């Protein structure tokens, strides 16, 4: 069967500006593979990002994009989704953008269970600002902003945070395995509700600890070990394994998924009339509206 859209249909003319070897190439490839597999119409796909190396991603695809300010990609995406719920909305960004400056929006977007897919390219360092500590930097990591004792804070654990906040699809992928990542992204896009895919995406320039080899030596596939992703308790148990309990084994794959929760769009009363972007403007019977003021 001939597909309507080729892989290249989704590519823009702009070449990625990432460092050679950057984990973000794999995430771009996985996303492109997923939307190609789903044959999504590029004009009905909106990719919103914040600021950071990874947030340049929308420019490299041929869909609609909004390259927002630092940390605010999620609310921009939520506004767009509410204005036109028929758009497929994907948010991309980094760990600083989503788990640092934007962490408040991250929690609230998940508790609302918007039908949005969120790909975080998590490299555990600030890349674009040349190597400061990130909210997911491991304890003890020496960076430009923590040169003496290293990081003395605990890292944010996005997987536990997502489970606790009401995300209905929670997964972790690794840039060293594009095929599995693409599958997780595809399923996340198809999921009816908020999907987080935390993508471990090594920074080859500024993070000399959490490298491709670091992950290759430690990762294992949750699904291959028989994890039940419909069990929230089991998901929490797997979530805290790394970085809190130990750092020898890092679970990848789908932690949790439920389809039983209605999305925000399902419940919002104004959307019962259809997408607001297609509703007529103005007030048909102003006298009726004005009566309460008389």
């Amino acid at each position: 069967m001939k597909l309507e859209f080729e892989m290249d249909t989704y590519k823009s003319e702009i070449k990625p500006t990432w460092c050679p070897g950057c984990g973000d190439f794999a995430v771009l490839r996985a996303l492109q593979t997923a939307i190609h597999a789903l044959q999504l119409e590029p004009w009905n796909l909106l990719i919103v990002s914040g600021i950071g190396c990874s947030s340049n991603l929308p420019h490299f695809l041929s869909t609609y994009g909004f390259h927002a300010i630092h940390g605010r990609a999620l609310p921009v995406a939520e506004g767009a989704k509410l204005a036109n719920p028929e758009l497929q909305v994907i948010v991309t960004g980094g760990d600083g953008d989503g788990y640092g400056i934007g962490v408040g929006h991250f929690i609230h977007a998940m508790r609302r269970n918007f039908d949005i897919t969120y790909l975080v390219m998590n490299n555990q360092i600030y890349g674009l600002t040349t190597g400061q500590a990130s909210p997911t930097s491991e304890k003890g990591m020496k960076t430009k902003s923590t040169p003496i004792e290293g990081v003395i804070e605990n890292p944010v654990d996005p997987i536990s945070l997502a489970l606790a906040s009401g995300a209905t699809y929670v997964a972790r992928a690794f840039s060293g395995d594009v095929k599995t990542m693409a599958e997780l992204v595809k399923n996340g896009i198809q999921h009816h509700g908020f999907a987080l895919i935390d993508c471990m995406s090594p920074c080859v320039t500024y993070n000399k600890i959490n490298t491709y080899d670091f992950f290759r030596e430690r990762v294992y596939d949750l699904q291959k070990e028989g994890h039940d992703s419909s069990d929230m308790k089991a998901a929490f148990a797997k979530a805290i394994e790394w970085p809190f309990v130990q750092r020898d084994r890092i679970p990848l794959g789908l932690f949790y998924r439920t389809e039983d929760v209605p999305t925000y769009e399902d419940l919002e009363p104004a959307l019962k009339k259809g997408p607001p972007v297609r509703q007529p403007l103005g007030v048909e019977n102003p006298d009726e509206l004005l009566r309460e003021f008389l």
Partner: protein
Amino acid sequence: MAKNDLVFRIGGAAGDGVSSTAESFAKMSARSGLHTWTYSSYQSVIRGGHVWTQIRGSLGPVLSHGVDPDVVVALNQQSMDVHQGDVVEGGAIVYDTDGTKPDPAKLRRNVRLIGIPLRKKAQTLSPNALMRNTVALGAVVKLFDIDFRHVESAFKDIWGDKKPEIVQQNIAAAKLGAEAVGQMGGSLNLGLPYSNEAKYLMTGNEAICLGALAAGVKFLAQYPMTPASSILHWMASHGPKYGVVVKQVEDELAAMNMTVGAGFAGVRAMTATSGGGFCLMVEAIGQAGMTETPLVAVLVQRSGPSTGLPTKTEQGDLNLALGAGQGDWPRAILAPRNPEECFRQAAQAFNLAEIYQTPIILISDLYLGEGYRTVEKLDFNVPIVRGMMAADGGTAKDFMRYRITESGVSPRALPGMKGFQHVAATDEHMENSELISDVLAGLPEHVEERRKMHAKRMRKLDGLRKDTPPPELWGPKNADLTLLIWGSTWGPAHEAIIQVDETEGVKVNSLEFPTIFPFHADQTEQLLRGAKQTLAVEGNYTGQFTRLLRAETGHKADRFYGKSDGEPFTWRDIADHILEAVA
């Protein structure tokens, strides 16, 4: 001169039901056919403290909440202490004889003391403590000779058909109050000929909501903050019926960013807040300027700095609106003077936002936003202009979202439009939205591209200046003094001008600015040419508008009267400063 207005003030503690009693009276006044204006003085507390509301009803157009009341209802001793001295000669004070005492030494002449055991009388009908207000309200209705049917209809509005027994109890309570006044000398005999033709009564915030609905708003994201919260409340209960998504969000960062997202996706989108919330919106509103995303932001000012006086009025956020965001980006700032203008400008703001693809700020304040005023019937038949869309003529092939044009406006495309895909970028970008910032910045041809792109955006100010309402000169052409005013100062200033003319024969006019930015410098200079002396009147300490006027025209106001004590201008405040200036 025959009296042509009534002024009623009620004071008590927060939680005593002062504001709902006052609202009922304002409705009765408007339904009696009076032009009506209210001001509520309240505090940042849910129970206790001291709150009061003043309602003024007038046979002719009313311009402020007035000064001294004809009747005061004092629900506690503090209210008596604070307000008894303000009651006009021949006026009356209604109070509860259990626990409240007037001080005759502090009263003006012939002020009638109408002590009623309010609580005891109310308790004969219901255990509800708030019912004593209804007894007092009945007394006030009698003192002003207001038709009792307006009392009944007001109570039916509040409790409706669902609780007829409560409506009946309240009507009975009001009758007890009216009877008590009947036994204590009867009405004030003001002789106001009520037409009993109901007038529309609304707040400035409600008028903004109505204007937005008329213009087809489909999205409001907001975080609660006094005095803008009533926009969220009204829209939350009315919006969905008109297909408006109304979202209370986690903070003002989200409010502005969601509004940006909704505007980008193609709906008419707005947010509303006060100064503190606007501070949080600043980065994101600049984002809308850079990405050329239409939206309307309503800034209802209160007293600053910082948390300031949350329940008090000020015009101190003009600099904030003028300077919001890093770098230069094109914006318009409209400043409505009254509820009718709130309606019109809200509707117009959505057109300007979409025509020029940039944020439009509507700056109001607590006095205008929360005060109730009667208005003429609003005309919902407002023009709707949605601006240039790529699909209107252009082809997808040569579409460039940020095409450089003479007007600065580029063809716009919405997500969902086939073939017009693009990325809206907050980094500086080229016509096709490719970033200049990353690997092109500083290269000679891209230095030029940046210059051109920035100039393109800023050229929108020329169009905005043409399309926004120009300054207006109100009052006699040949005046001894010209007031320079903006926003809610309009009402008290006009009343002051009328008063000094009637009582002192002093001729004053006012130059007023429904548009603050882009500044209409040419017209302003022309209108100022005939001014003998100018007095700038605004509700802040430094003269934020006065300084803008000087920066834009070189005109230094001869005198400046800035008020930032939290209270609104009264006409008398302004009249005093006028007389001082012309003395």
